[in-house]
């Protein structure tokens, strides 16, 4: 399963609604910065990356596409 499909499934199960890959998760008010922390933990477990430093910006969690882009970058940077 590719990253965005996996994330859309995770979000649907946690928020009880469906999302579009480019939909703003925070604008809806359904997703809070606390939930973003849960997303960090999920991304680390599911994709074997470490989200630290400059990556810990809400902008990287605003859409499923943004999260996918970040995970791909982090995976590419991991030897």
């Amino acid at each position: 399963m590719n990253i965005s499909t996996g994330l859309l499934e995770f979000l649907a199960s946690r928020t009880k609604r469906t999302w579009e890959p480019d939909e703003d998760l925070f604008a809806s008010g359904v997703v809070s910065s606390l939930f973003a922390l849960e997303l960090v933990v999920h991304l680390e477990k599911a994709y074997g990356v470490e989200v630290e430093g400059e990556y810990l910006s809400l902008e990287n969690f605003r859409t499923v596409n943004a999260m996918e882009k970040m995970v791909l970058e982090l995976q590419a940077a991991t030897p």
Partner: protein
Amino acid sequence: MIAVLGAGVMGTGIATLAVGHGLAVTLVDIDADKLAAAKDAVRHQLRGAKLMGRMPRSGPTGELTCTTSLADVAGATSVIEAVTELPELKAKVLAEVSALVEPGTLILTNTSAIPVDELASSTVRPEDVAGAHFMNPPYLIRMVEVIRGPRTGDAAMDAARSLLDSLDHDHVTVGDGPGFVINRILQRTINEAARIVEEGLASPAEVDALFEGCLGHRTGPLATADLIGLDNVADSLRVLRDRTGDAGYAPCELLLAKVRDGDFGRKTGRGFYEHGGQS
């Protein structure tokens, strides 16, 4: 390196605050399990604070060393004491640490209610001791209630201010006395709120909804109590009752029952509210 004594709710949060601002921290507890949990919690809290934009994202993170040996703090530039709110225990820990560190090393106590001068009496140099009552969680709430005891020296006050500056925290300095400003009022409020629930006049959610809706408090007194930890609330109330002689501070039966049942609030998953597992 700064020393933080006690790796509970507050010691862990203070460690997060300090390492997030690049200071090396030695965190001490007698309970190795608490230290192991604190290590994970600090990492989690750091990331949360950064995500919320409440902590610098760039810049170095201070090193966190966890230890059960108090002797490891001998070289500390300042000490923040955050062990359990039991007067004899704090007196013992403060006496030990003050004998270990260099003269002139700032010793801050994060006590909720024990007068600073009473605690300073157990140390080798009362002039090095001041109070810094951090709010919970310390890495998100920037204001600190600083307490100057009657024997606190100018050097200690300067050191306290510069430490808080380096943590990007604000403070208000007040005089010494049981509960200082915040807890002389807050603990009493929590106790009355619990008594109201005990008497069946309102549910915890109703009490809190009134404080939030009518008075604009962000969190009502009973949700606040769950955040603090009901064991700590009961300890603080006993300290206040014993030192003021005011029976209104005696922890009410409902509060004592919850503590007896191990329902401490967020840290155990249940208090006045259910918290869905530990958090």
